């Protein structure tokens, strides 16, 4: 059940909010139980066969957390739990014929919780709180990956489990903006992306660039729109989700890009893989009296072991997290290469490029990576990249109305990407500017009309191509 579909918009969401309003009147326990029940229904509606897996995963991890509290062997239990979670993830993601819906997200969310409690001195959350943390429907299928440090205290509070006008106003704003991002901005791009990637070998220079650029925009607006909707849904019931995107296409380096793109995944892998691995390498070198200072990091051997290795391992995991295919693996290795060049540039104190050049260069790197990310085979990616390099010829840009409209649309989207504020900035900046959202009547009317537009657009934006008109 997608957030932008009729069943969710016209059935599930009003029902959940109505039920939450009623349950909230009876107290915290009722409100939380209602949200857990709604989350299970939400999951079962999309993947009924995997509902037992979700229940087992939540139940099993909760049992582990209870065992870990106060135990001298908490770290060992945590390690065992992580291994089991990864094994289940690996089985259902790579070996099972049908991948389990949302498994990557709820597994990582729970692994994060196990590691958070690995010291053994942190009290395990209550069952109801943990179930809500691990299976809350807005983050269940596509994140953001929730950090236990941020989320568990919010969920554990006993006050504020009521539907409030303030939360509804802000949450609905996030949700509507996300819905419009997905339905109005991202979905129509499929008419440029699909045909381009279907036959990349036939694309000359400009159409190849158009297909790649359209895909990078589609991916951003789709995913960030989904995240905005998730943040809005959580906000409506009084929970605050972390951001997942911070204007990534404005990044001035690939390092900065990864700090702004799918931030919850980056944060998770940085804290659970990159940082521990780097620390382990530094300890290993120190134990062998090898230097670990900046000068040592500038040598090829030091750079490779202290910077290169953790980055390559982390990026390979990023690739595998998305899927066990060769294009994904190449995507991870390519980004690892970009990051290494970026780090080497810094280590050598090379002069910084002008901001515009940095943004353009970073975006081109990301664009090349996105071609691999979208391609189903290496051949497909090579075909499109070959077209972008001009290997299939350079035809003049067509001057028909359809091409002009497509180009104008792409320019408009780039203007939004590079010039518009983020949803959070727009909704919560507190600025007195009239262009920034405020809980005022004019904005209420505008957002009400935008909600209508969002529901309308859920019907799809592509007219049948069957007819010539």
């Amino acid at each position: 059940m997608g957030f932008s579909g009729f069943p969710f918009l016209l059935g599930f969401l009003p029902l959940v909010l109505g039920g939450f309003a009623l349950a909230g009147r009876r107290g915290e326990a009722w409100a939380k139980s209602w949200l857990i029940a709604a989350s299970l229904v939400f999951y079962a509606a999309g993947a009924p066969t995997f509902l037992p897996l979700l229940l087992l995963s939540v139940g099993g991890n909760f049992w582990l957390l209870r065992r870990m509290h106060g135990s001298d062997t908490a770290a060992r239990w945590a390690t065992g739990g992580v291994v089991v979670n990864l094994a289940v993830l690996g089985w259902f993601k790579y070996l099972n014929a049908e991948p389990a819906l949302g498994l990557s997200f709820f597994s990582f969310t729970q692994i994060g919780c196990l590691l958070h409690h690995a010291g053994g001195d942190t009290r395990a959350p209550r069952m109801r709180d943990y179930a809500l943390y691990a299976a809350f429907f807005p983050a269940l299928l596509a994140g953001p990956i929730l950090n236990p440090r941020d989320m568990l205290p919010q969920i554990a509070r006993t006050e504020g489990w009521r539907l409030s006008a303030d939360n509804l106003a802000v949450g609905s704003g996030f949700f509507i903006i996300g819905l419009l991002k997905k339905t109005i901005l991202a979905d129509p791009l499929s008419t440029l992306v699909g045909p381009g990637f279907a036959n990349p070998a036939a694309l000359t220079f400009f159409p190849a660039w158009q297909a790649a650029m359209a895909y990078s925009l589609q991916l951003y607006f789709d995913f960030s729109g989904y995240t905005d909707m998730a943040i809005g849904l959580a906000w409506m019931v009084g929970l605050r989700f972390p951001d997942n995107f911070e204007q990534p296409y404005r990044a001035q380096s690939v390092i900065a890009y990864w700090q702004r793109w799918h931030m919850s995944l980056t944060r998770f892998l940085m804290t659970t893989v990159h940082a521990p691995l780097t620390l382990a390498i530094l300890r290993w070198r120190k134990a062998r009296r090898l230097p670990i200072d900046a000068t040592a990091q500038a040598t090829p051997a030091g750079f490779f072991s202290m910077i290169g290795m953790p980055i390559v391992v982390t990026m390979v995991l990023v690739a595998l997290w998305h899927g066990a295919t060769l294009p994904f693996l190449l995507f991870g290795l390519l980004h690892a290469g970009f990051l290494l060049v970026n780090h080497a540039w810094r280590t050598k104190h090379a002069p910084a490029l002008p901001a515009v050049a940095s943004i353009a260069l970073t975006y081109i790197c990301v664009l090349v990576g996105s071609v691999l990310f979208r391609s189903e085979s290496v051949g497909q990616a090579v075909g499109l990249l070959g077209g972008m390099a001009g290997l299939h010829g350079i035809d003049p840009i067509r001057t028909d109305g359809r091409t002009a409209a497509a180009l104008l649309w792409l320019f408009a989207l780039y203007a939004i990407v590079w010039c518009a504020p983020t949803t959070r900035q727009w909704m919560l900046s507190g600025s007195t500017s009239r262009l920034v959202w405020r809980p005022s009547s004019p904005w209420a009317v505008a957002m009400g009309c935008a909600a209508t537009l969002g529901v309308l657009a859920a019907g799809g934006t592509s007219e049948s191509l069957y007819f010539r008109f």
Partner: protein
Amino acid sequence: MLYLRPFGLAALLSFALLWVWVATMPMAFMDAEYASLRAKQVLLRRCDLGDVLVLGDSRAAADIIPARLPLRVTNLAIGGGKAIEALSALQRALACPVRPRLVIISLDPGHFSRPDLLWDRSVRFGFMDGQDVSDLREVSLRMGDLSVYDSRHFALMPLLLRDWLYETRFPPLFFANLAHSGLFLRWWHNQQSLTDTLTARGHYYFGTDPGSSTVTLDGHMATFRALPVLDHYFDKLLGLLDRSGIEARFIAMPVNEATWNEVNPAVRDGFAAYLAGYERRYRHFRVASEIMPHWPDRFFGDQFCHLNPEGAERFSDLLAQRLQDAPPSTQNEAQKGWLSDTGTDASFNVVPISKRGS
């Protein structure tokens, strides 16, 4: 609440206003085929149908030009049309005071074996009304074949609710049209299309390119197998014609050479056997052409094997000659294959209607 009240009111009011617009002003925003289908509904409502009715799919809609035929003909074929839409149109036609003398049926093999545009066109455009959809639901459920009825599946939405949303023109189902038309900018063009299709007695073109060598669906089919529900409707269509004593002729529209070269003989033979079975069953039904006539690619206007103006005129002239030489009552087996000409232009044999007398 100071925020939520105007928010809710604005959302409800704007949605309601749009719903009224969508329900009452489709000519302002729908794509041009809507106007053409509307014209056919107007002809049906006026009972201005003439001696011959054409029922079928888009190829029949584009290829048969009533104005070039010696009889008064109305072309009621529609894009994506199947036996379901044909039966719906026939039932309305038979409610008129004067019944047709001949019905030409033309459906390509694909329109017996896939749902095509039932929801996108026939239902959304209002060519099939609530009763038609209700009948289809009843038949589909009874036969256990939901392939057509459930071809537009909304996840988790009850089928009856989906049907109701289509019947009431739920605005999101029309968003693409609204967005592409700027809400109202197609009004003038659609009015012109309506007038043109009414004047052309139901004929309208699809592609008008000067040739197409694209292999269409017919060339990709592995075998011919009618869906049970479409077979049921075809049977019902022929049964109704038979009981009404109306001659029915199946005339296949040409495909291009590129498609013909790819057609699996099993498809052609299976389709022929299927139609032959109905010839044996119904006294008034005859197959009056080759099963898959094939013409040079230059006569086709798009990737779906719709004839372009030159091709449609040529085909209609051949059909005119046939209708003049062999009125429905005198047609016989020996004349099968008259549309198989693939060589030089045969239309020079046709005497223009204006010179024939009547």
